């Protein structure tokens, strides 16, 4: 995927160009929806969060600064915040299992970008999947459900120190995989 094309398109969106907006939608919607579905667990809620994310793109495109990082990261950061706000609003019980995450969806999803980017995403995905289950639960709750360490301790009935140790260990493990490239 060509990042300079993204930058060009988002610049046009800032000027109200609907075609450029739809081009960005077509490029990135599968990543936005994949993330919001992972966080919210229900297609209807995930589509609403996807819609809110893209409407925010429409109204805030001017705030995107290319020198701060790739457009997709910026968009997905918005998507994560929107979805996590929604989780809190619904005060839904967090999803502790990971039933909606079959590996085979990787097979025929478009827009994965270049082969090397895809490899990196996949390796991090599988690294999260293969964390020790206790570490993975903490990561899921913290990162994908927006809970603080003390909230996690409460939900799981673990001592706060245990939650902190496991979160730190999980992040160190993921960092190792990420740095291998």
């Amino acid at each position, binding site marked *: 995927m*060509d990042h300079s*094309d993204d930058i060009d398109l988002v610049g*046009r969106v800032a*000027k*109200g*160009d*609907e*075609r*450029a*907006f*739809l*081009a960005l939608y*077509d*490029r990135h*919607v*599968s990543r936005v*929806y*994949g*993330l919001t579905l*992972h966080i919210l667990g229900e*297609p209807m809620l*995930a589509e609403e969060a*996807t*819609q809110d994310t*893209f*409407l925010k793109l*429409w*109204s805030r495109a001017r705030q995107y600064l290319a020198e701060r*990082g790739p457009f*997709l*990261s910026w968009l*997905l*950061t918005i*998507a994560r915040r929107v979805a996590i706000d929604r989780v809190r609003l619904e005060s839904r019980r967090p999803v502790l299992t990971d039933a909606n995450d079959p590996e085979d*969806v*990787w097979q025929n*999803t*478009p*827009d994965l970008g270049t082969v090397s980017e895809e490899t*990196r*995403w996949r390796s*991090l*995905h599988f*690294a999260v999947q293969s964390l020790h289950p206790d570490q993975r639960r903490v*990561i899921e709750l*913290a*990162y*994908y459900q*927006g*809970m*603080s*360490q*003390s909230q*996690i301790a409460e939900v799981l009935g673990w001592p706060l120190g245990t939650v902190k140790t496991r*979160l*730190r260990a999980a*992040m160190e493990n*993921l*960092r190792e995989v*990420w740095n291998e490239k």
Partner: protein
Amino acid sequence: MVRNEHSPYLENIAAYAVGALDAEEIAALESHLQTCASCRTELAEYRLLSESMLTAVPPRQPSVALRNRIQSRLPGARKDARPRWNWSPGFTAGALAFVVLLALNVYSVSQMRALQLQQTQLARQYQSGQTVLAMLSYPATERLPIASESLAGSFLLDKDRNLAALIVWKMPQLPEDQTYQIWLIAPQGDRTSAGIFRPEDGQAYTTQIIFPKQGFSNYVGIGVTVEPAGGSDQPTGERVLKVDF
């Protein structure tokens, strides 16, 4: 890890990067970060990891209806955001004109409902002017004249990449309830739709990009007819132009 003045903060940096610290811890860490470069470096690395975790979730396709729903809710959208071309006398209808017009018009490709997703993706790949330029300078690209009494233009055909561009000068506007429709013509005479289009107001050229589902080698030509708005399954109206390969 050596225990030193950073230890209580270092231990919190990973949690901070994923937004899992409680409020008091955040305040303490942030004030330490202001004075400590090594902790800022550590944070920068975890921030990158945290950002990458946004894409560590499998992509999924939402319903097709979502796109229309979002499009209908855009406040203050400008439908036609293309820059207008300034025609100068020295500017002739050479390859450069085609490049500019192709680049301007490729955006419309992603909007063509008739195209399949795969074709839309192809269209995206051709969004960059460089690639369009490559198509024009590609040795195998054929430039065929348009055979019509009233219209002039060219048909660029790149059989190797299964890509074509139809460029027509001053195509007449149609009433609201009509559209132009492009047809791929098979050797036995069968017609397959390759999309509908309406000329843009005030544009000297109309450019349409064509990616057939099957290769161009399955066809002997293209035609354009006038059809009711929305297009037809088979040609019903007057043919305005034809190109034989």
